[in-house]
């Protein structure tokens, strides 16, 4: 049971492991949420970890040959194969008697929601013993901001220009993963590193497929100031746009942080990708967020009763 009080000041000291398995010479953009979350994730998992990264921003962030920004072994693989390559690595480790090593598949939203969904579904259905993290920056950022099925409704991207913005809601990836009845699925945010680290540690201790969905602000793609990334990651949670929760075995839903319920506009207005929104559209986003939140609360309550 994860107990995080909303009022706690989240002191980092004593909660986060001091190990640094990600090095400072990485190639992420200023204010990159994906770089932050890798640092926290590896702190949680420790050095007995092998990382698998498909095509995504992290292909670049990790550094060009012969360098690596990670102090754990790293296997770069093709776009749609994070889960299947990770499953193969785990199978190999098991047969070689090294099954205790954690295998971390680390993919963006394109590699998870879209092109890698089949392989991820396959691994989840087989309950392969991997931790799959989707760091979600809500578009194809590495290729220069094209819409993915993780892009929010009405957000600007280069393939959803403001005169023809995205007309579809963000795919509910957590529900898809929960429907696979995997032992553990959770959301996380770099604004709440203790919550993120605890969830990663919990995932590490569970056998089977674990899925961690992490919101990862992207200053170039979101058209936001780089110093606002942590604030945006916090607002995403506090506006209930990206609530923090976990799901065990696809059935036990638990909200791990009670959000303040700030207006969505607080979050939207800091990002150029939403600058074109009309008050009516913002109202509609608020309604959708409130309805989704009510559904999440109902699922968590159903579990509690």
């Amino acid at each position, binding site marked *: 049971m994860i107990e995080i009080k909303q009022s706690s000041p989240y002191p980092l000291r004593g909660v986060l492991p001091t190990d640094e398995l990600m090095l400072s010479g990485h190639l992420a953009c200023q204010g990159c949420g994906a770089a932050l979350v890798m640092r926290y994730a590896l702190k949680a998992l420790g050095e007995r970890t092998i990382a698998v990264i498909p095509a995504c921003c992290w292909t670049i962030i990790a550094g060009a040959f012969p360098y690596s920004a990670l102090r754990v072994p*790293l296997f770069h693989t093709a776009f749609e194969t994070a889960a299947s390559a990770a*499953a193969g690595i785990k199978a190999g480790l098991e047969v070689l008697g090294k099954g205790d090593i954690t295998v971390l598949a680390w993919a963006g939203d394109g590699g998870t929601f879209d092109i890698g969904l089949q392989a991820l579904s396959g691994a989840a259905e087989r309950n392969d013993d991997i931790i799959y993290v989707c760091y979600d920056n809500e578009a194809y950022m590495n290729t220069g901001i094209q819409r993915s099925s993780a892009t929010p409704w009405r957000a600007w991207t280069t393939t959803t220009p403001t005169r023809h913005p995205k007309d579809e809601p963000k795919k509910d990836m957590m529900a898809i993963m929960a429907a696979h009845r995997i032992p553990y699925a959770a959301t996380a945010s770099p604004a709440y590193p203790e919550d993120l680290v605890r969830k990663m540690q919990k995932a590490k201790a569970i056998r089977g497929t674990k899925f961690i969905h992490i919101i990862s602000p992207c200053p170039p793609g979101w058209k936001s100031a780089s110093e606002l990334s942590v604030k945006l990651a916090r607002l995403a949670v506090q506006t209930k746009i990206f609530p923090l929760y976990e799901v065990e075995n696809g059935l036990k839903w638990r909200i791990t942080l009670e959000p303040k319920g700030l207006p969505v506009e607080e979050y939207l207005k800091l990002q150029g990708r939403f600058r074109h929104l009309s008050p009516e559209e913002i109202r509609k986003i608020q309604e959708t967020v409130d309805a989704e939140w009510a559904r999440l609360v109902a699922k968590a309550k159903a579990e509690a009763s």
Partner: protein
Amino acid sequence: MATEVELKAGIPSGKKVITGNYAVSYGAALARAQVIAAYPITPQTQIVELLADFCAEGALRANFIKVESEHSAMAACIGAAAVGARAFTATSAQGLALMHEMLHWAAGARLPIVMANVNRAMGPPWSIWTDQNDSLSQRDTGWMQFYCESNQEALDTVIQAYKVAEKVLLPAMLVLDAFFLSHTSEPVEIPEQGLVDRYLPPYNPEFKLDITDPRAFGGITMPSEYFELRYKMQKAMEEALEVAKAADLEFKELFGRGYGLVEPYRLEDAELALVTSGTVTSTARLVIDELRAKGERVGLLKVRLFRPFPTALVREHLLKVPKIAVIDRNISFGHGGIFAQEIKSALYNAEPRRPLFGFVAGLGGRDITPELIEEIIAYALAHDRPEEEIIWMGVKR
């Protein structure tokens, strides 16, 4: 099939009448494949079914991942090999085509995965019968390719392929004809596990995903280094020619059977050399024996290793013969039979210039009968040079 009791004690040796598919399964089991990731496709499916049995019965200590696609099968084999496990898969046609991206990844990552591909014609229209367009379409992926003629050769080639692949760090594909081999039963000698172990020591690569020596594999590489990595792949392919030759000789010493990279058959004093691959070779041998008995001077060169291409051996055997006739059960649309192109290119910078007849036959599993091969030989003997670049055999026009 072996009984459950037999299997618990490992893979039983001795003579058995088995299909080509099962021969491949026995080969993979005797090679002690450690991770198998596979997806079913006709006519390959029995290979992985028997391997699943071997795993279930404990005869083979392997982790079998029942993946959701061939693309994932190859990705999982890549992951397993990257961590230092011996990986195996099998596929056919559409499955192989779906793997295409990952075939490049396996070779570029220098992972010695072994795969059986049962040659099946590509759709559309749907066909389950044999031709070589599936495997030959993967020619430039950096995989070695062995074309097998018999079930025994298929079994033995799995074991040899690991030996070569793990030495030069390139993946290897063995190829067998749909149904003519995959589903045809022949007597096969199952070698003793102890002997196979002597021939093929455990796979232990120098570089692998290792938490005590963390490295990044396959990261973005600048033009200042990428080129050299590709040069090294070509050098590894060139080395593989010698390694494969030595591996076959060593195999022959231990097991009493060898195949060569190419196999000349009755080429001495021949006026015409047929060039074949796969099961067509067996039919052609028969025809050549019959024609030789009638005094015709015809012979055969079987090409077993297609990648790396055994250029020196092809020159050595074919330049002695005044005429060459290549039988292709494949077609590169817009050019012609692929083996014919390869043989031509191997001979181009060598003397003397020999007329080469390119015959395309048997696409989509149509029989290449002894009569058809006789026609091919008769045509080549009757003409000084081919009248067309592609001579279509048996096509209804």
